[in-house]
């Protein structure tokens, strides 16, 4: 890996000036490297992070065709990584005009990384630096513990999609004054409602009393409030203490839970495993926002590289070349999805809507199509508005809030379906729907969404770990359950249970000519419980 030459770097700095002038904001420094095919071979398994820890699976061709992005929630071929300073990768024989386009694309990505709030937790440190020290920790452990280090990495990576990214974000953004003590939370949320089952009026009285206490005693209000409450309920303190033991604060983050609660990991001889779990968890959290902003991030970058390239006075005469490459990247496919194309159009659409003042209640309540078409308040706040969008949304909200029927009609979008024509033995692709809601739903369904698996220690036998998979109309990939649970059992040190739902496809008789297409309408859902005990997997229906 070599740095780009001074000539190209000068072009990059020129791009930075123009991008800043247009409103993008990013740190001053950036590193640009030329990568060869050979470099790419080493980098892509490490998701372009040059300093990521070594792991034998990186040396093996990994079967990716199944559930590609669910298993590997990050793209191995990113051009720019979210580090301090940001690092981007280039081909060494790009013509300058193409570099200009790519530089703008990269700068917009950097702007996105550094301003979108879903990346907040990555702002305060340099991930490559962190990764380098992690890599050294792992190398050192490997020297001491040998292959067991790799087993622990493997087991930890097996659950690295079960981290509570959103919970962590919420912690960052909850202002301290909004927090109240856990005792207060417990008293009002659980104790009064579920333990004491007080009437609504009593509950409200209690709330009033609390507010009065705050008003009268200020800082000491809560203390005084509880003094009286304890007189009334002497058992409160004991209940509260017990609730702290049984209810882990965060149940969606399995890795965190294991780190905090696994007795196996707490043993002196196993304490080293914790550092590995931490490393794997942090790495996963680092990549989480990236996969959740794919459409926005690429859309944003495409929007800006188009706009800034066309304004750039340095590369006049390459408009046609640019148009060709740009169209290749951002054209809407006849069937299929393209995050660059969709994201870019959606940003332009939002900007235009905001310019005309349409992102307002006044516009939303108009039903008359003709009036809607002519609605224009001329506020011209679009530019500001897309910056707000870039700052605050992720893919889900981006699509949910902005993909409307106007957008659909304008770009002639539709949901494409695929079905089998039994008579003629062909797959037919057809226009399934042109409704915005259905297109939106189809897009939302295709977004990255790891299963919601929570720890529920009120079930299962003493000492075991009970996991509950929330049913969302999908089943887990069955063949992977065994090995994943095996890893969890190892890290937990006792039996592990997993409650989940499985589809039962009604069996067709093997004598009759088999229905050649799996009959999907015959699905019924069955709640099942897997248990992993001493490396033996068993399953029972619930």
């Amino acid at each position, binding site marked *: 890996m070599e740095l780009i030459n001074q000539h190209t770097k000068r072009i990059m700095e*020129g791009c930075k000036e123009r991008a800043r002038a247009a409103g993008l904001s990013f740190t001053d420094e950036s590193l640009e490297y030329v990568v060869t095919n050979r470099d790419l071979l080493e980098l892509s398994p490490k998701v372009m992070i040059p300093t990521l820890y070594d792991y034998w699976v990186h*040396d093996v061709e990994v079967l990716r065709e199944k559930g590609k992005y669910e298993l590997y929630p990050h793209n191995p071929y990113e051009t720019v990584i979210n580090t301090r300073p940001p690092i981007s990768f280039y081909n060494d024989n790009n013509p300058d005009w193409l570099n200009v386009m790519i530089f703008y694309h990269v700068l917009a990505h950097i702007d996105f990384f550094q301003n979108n709030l879903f990346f907040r937790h990555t702002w305060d440190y340099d991930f490559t630096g962190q990764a380098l020290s992690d890599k050294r920790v792992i190398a050192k452990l490997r020297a001491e513990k040998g292959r067991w280090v790799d087993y622990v990495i493997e087991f930890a990576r097996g659950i690295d999609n079960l981290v509570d990214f959103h919970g962590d974000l919420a912690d960052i953004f909850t202002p301290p004054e909004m927090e109240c003590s856990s005792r207060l939370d417990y008293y009002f949320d659980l104790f009064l409602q579920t333990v004491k089952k007080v009437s609504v009026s009593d509950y409200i009285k209690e709330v009033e009393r609390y507010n009065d206490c705050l008003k009268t005693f200020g800082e000491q209000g809560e203390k005084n409030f509880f003094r009286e409450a304890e007189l009334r309920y002497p058992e409160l303190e004991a209940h509260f203490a017990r609730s702290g033991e049984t209810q882990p604060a965060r149940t969606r983050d399995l890795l965190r839970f294991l780190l905090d609660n696994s007795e196996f990991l707490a043993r002196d001889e196993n304490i080293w495993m914790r550092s590995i779990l931490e490393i794997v968890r942090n790495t996963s959290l680092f990549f989480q926002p990236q996969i959740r902003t794919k459409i926005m991030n690429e859309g944003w970058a495409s929007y800006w590289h188009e706009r800034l390239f066309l304004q750039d006075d340095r590369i006049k005469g*390459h408009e046609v070349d640019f148009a060709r490459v740009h169209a290749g990247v951002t054209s809407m496919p006849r069937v299929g999805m393209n995050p660059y194309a969709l994201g870019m159009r959606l940003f332009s659409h939002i900007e235009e809507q905001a310019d005309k003042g349409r992102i307002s209640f006044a516009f939303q309540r108009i039903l008359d199509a003709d009036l809607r078409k002519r609605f224009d308040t001329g506020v011209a706040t679009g530019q500001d508005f897309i910056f707000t969008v870039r700052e605050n949304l992720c893919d889900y909200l981006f699509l949910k809030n902005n993909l409307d029927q106007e957008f659909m009609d304008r770009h002639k979008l539709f949901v494409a379906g695929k079905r089998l024509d039994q008579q003629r033995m062909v797959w037919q692709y057809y226009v399934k729907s042109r409704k915005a809601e259905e297109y939106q739903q189809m897009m939302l369904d295709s977004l990255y969404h790891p299963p919601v698996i929570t720890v529920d220690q009120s079930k299962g036998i003493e000492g075991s770990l009970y996991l509950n998979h929330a049913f969302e109309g999908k089943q887990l990939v069955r063949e992977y359950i065994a090995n994943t649970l095996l890893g969890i059992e190892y890290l937990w040190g006792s039996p592990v249970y997993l409650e989940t739902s499985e589809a039962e496809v009604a069996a067709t008789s093997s004598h009759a000519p088999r229905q050649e297409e799996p009959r999907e309408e015959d699905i019924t859902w069955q709640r099942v419980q897997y248990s992993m005990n001493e490396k033996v997997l068993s399953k029972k229906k619930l």
Partner: protein
Amino acid sequence: MRAELATVSNGHDVPPDDKPRRDELARFSRSIYDFGDLLVLRQAVAPQFNAAALAKSLDELLERDRQREQDGFPRKIQVGKLVKPGRGRAGKVVVVPTTVEEKLFHDPTVRPAGEGGSSGGTGDGEEGEVIGEQPVREEGEQPGTGPGQGEGENHELESSAYDLGKSLAEKFQLPNLKDKGKKRSFTRYTYDLTDKNRGFGQVLDKKATLRKIVETNIALGNLPDVSDIDPTRFLIAPHDKIYRVLSREKDYEPQAMLFFLRDYSGSMAGKVTDLIVSQHVLIYSWLLYQYGGQAESRFILHDTEAKEVPDFYTYYNSRVAGGTQVSSAYQLVNEIVARENLVKDYNIYVFHGTDGDDWDEGGEKTIPEIQKMLTYVSRVGVTIAEHGQPGSTTVSRYLLGSGLLKDRPELIRMDIMQEDADEARLIEGIKRLIS
């Protein structure tokens, strides 16, 4: 600014399209996460895995895998899962060590909504209008459904070849191999000291030399009395010395013709196909390695009718959704053998993979074809990968019913495995078929 403009290099070309334009329908099942800047912005092509590195690491990886088993964890590395033979170039079977990082994630293949899923689209067309069709019988056009990598993005794995056959070579041998038709000149040679040469060479052939010397001396009249020979008086010409020289010997070996038959009907979808082709890949790559030029392969796919396909690639990647007539495939083999008179020159082996479904309930058509086949083949190996309850498939039922398996165990074998069989089970199966 001017300076920058002046220094803009002369490069005016758009980088060449590195991807051939594909059928636009192929993008249907492409996820938005398949796009990466480096590839999309033409910054790079997907890198190829390095053959040498993979080959080197394979032994190490397998050793690691053995160690895993000793440590009490299931094996994780599979060999022979990924195959990317170049189209039309038979013999380019490449096998790499592969693995999967297992996690808990949603299975996208179970959908309550019918049909083949949905995707985005742009352009004209009323709701319900068909905008494109794709014949089911088309080869290898089902991205992601075939084993291997389906529509790999320019993944040419040739350079990452590793002969799986090598690791299997010690384990198997073709059964009932007979000498037949030694007409072919082979590329395999052995070197031996069989040729003789006068005057110089590698090893002196003492007996032959002595005989020659005696001959010469008789001719010269140097040996008056044959009953009283005095070797010290021999006249020895350099030309009398006979040597053995190292020479290349042609090694005639029996020929084998292998027919790979595969059910590719709709019921074969998913894991079953995976298993069958994996097993055939194993057999095929082993043959290529072990028997080189001596073993030739033919590939036949069948649903209700059978057809021969030109190469392993097509064989491997094809998929349709039709019914099943097992007899059609056997019939085709019989036809080919008769037409090309293969029996005379070849040992014939037939490997058939199916999920056990057959519309020919009692095997009325199939059994006669098999019986006909058994008159000339060296071995028929039938692999059945079962979907459901063990022993309930049509094919296994009529094969067992016919008594052929019991009467002619030398010629026909059957291996039944469950849908969830693993690599070890596949190899076990091969042993059963060809032992």
